[in-house]
């Protein structure tokens, strides 16, 4: 049986990989995918804690899984809106590379 530490380690690694992707990649769609990876890492932590918590009747603690449910729903809405923004951006600028979007640069 893997311990709680193992789950936290794997989830932390997944979060780090997502963060590295957000900082390193220039394609805004990949950046967006890496954001999803980071959200999923948080979900893994939540589910692990929900399973490992000792509750009164020894069933998993469903409060944590509720938060995962809400996170997944909000992520779905966020992806829909974000991709619509990316399409609008591409129409206006013909690029989705973050290096070339410099109109706010001082």
């Amino acid at each position, binding site marked *: *049986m*893997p311990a709680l*530490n*193992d*789950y*936290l380690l*794997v989830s*932390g*690694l*997944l979060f*780090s*990989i997502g*963060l*590295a*992707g957000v*900082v*390193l*990649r*220039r*394609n805004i*769609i*990949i950046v967006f*995918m*890496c954001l*999803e*990876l980071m959200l*999923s890492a948080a*979900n*893994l932590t939540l*589910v*692990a804690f*929900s*399973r*490992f*918590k*000792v509750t*009164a*009747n*020894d*069933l*998993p603690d*469903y*409060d944590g*899984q*509720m938060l*995962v*449910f*809400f996170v*997944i*729903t909000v*992520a*779905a*809405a*966020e992806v829909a*809106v974000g*991709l*619509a923004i*990316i*399409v*609008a951006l591409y129409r206006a600028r013909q690029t989705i590379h973050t290096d070339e979007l410099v109109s706010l640069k001082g």
Partner: protein
Amino acid sequence: MPSYLFWLFATIMLIGACAVIAFRNPVSSALAMVTSFVGLAALFIGLSAFFVGVIQILVYSGAIMVLFLFIIMLLDLKDEKRRTESYLPLVAGLSLVGIFFIQLIGVLSNKLPNQSAPILDKATLAAAAGDYPEGSKINEALTNGKLPDVHLIGETLFTQYNLPLQILGILLLVATVGVVVLSKRQTN
């Protein structure tokens, strides 16, 4: 979940995640992401969170990734060119990750409570059945030694978390309207 399965799925998930940022072609990245999410869903199912595992596959690997692939196709993206400019972003990114990793080691080197999960065997489940009304589906399944994961989530969602659920419905409505407004071609 046996240890070797945990490490197998965790490895699949992490390799998929690395592939997302390593591939130059966005379509390859999207497919690597599907691999990563399938591994993650397997980990969820190993944690007895069957419902969350299934919606992870349905919503992420199904809906969200298809949406990503659709947008990539729509924009007709080329492979990203190799960059030649300064290494400042690389250094910043790696140091961020390094700091996070040190923090992670700091957390994990402390002994956490609840090192082993409560065992969900038939006796535990049957004992928990008393908390739910006689004759209900949850009670029946628990008495038979099965974990009625979806029923328990539904029960929590529609009683304790009813108001957040309604607010979530409004959020989805707003998102739908927003997407339609955003993707409508400007005509004036």
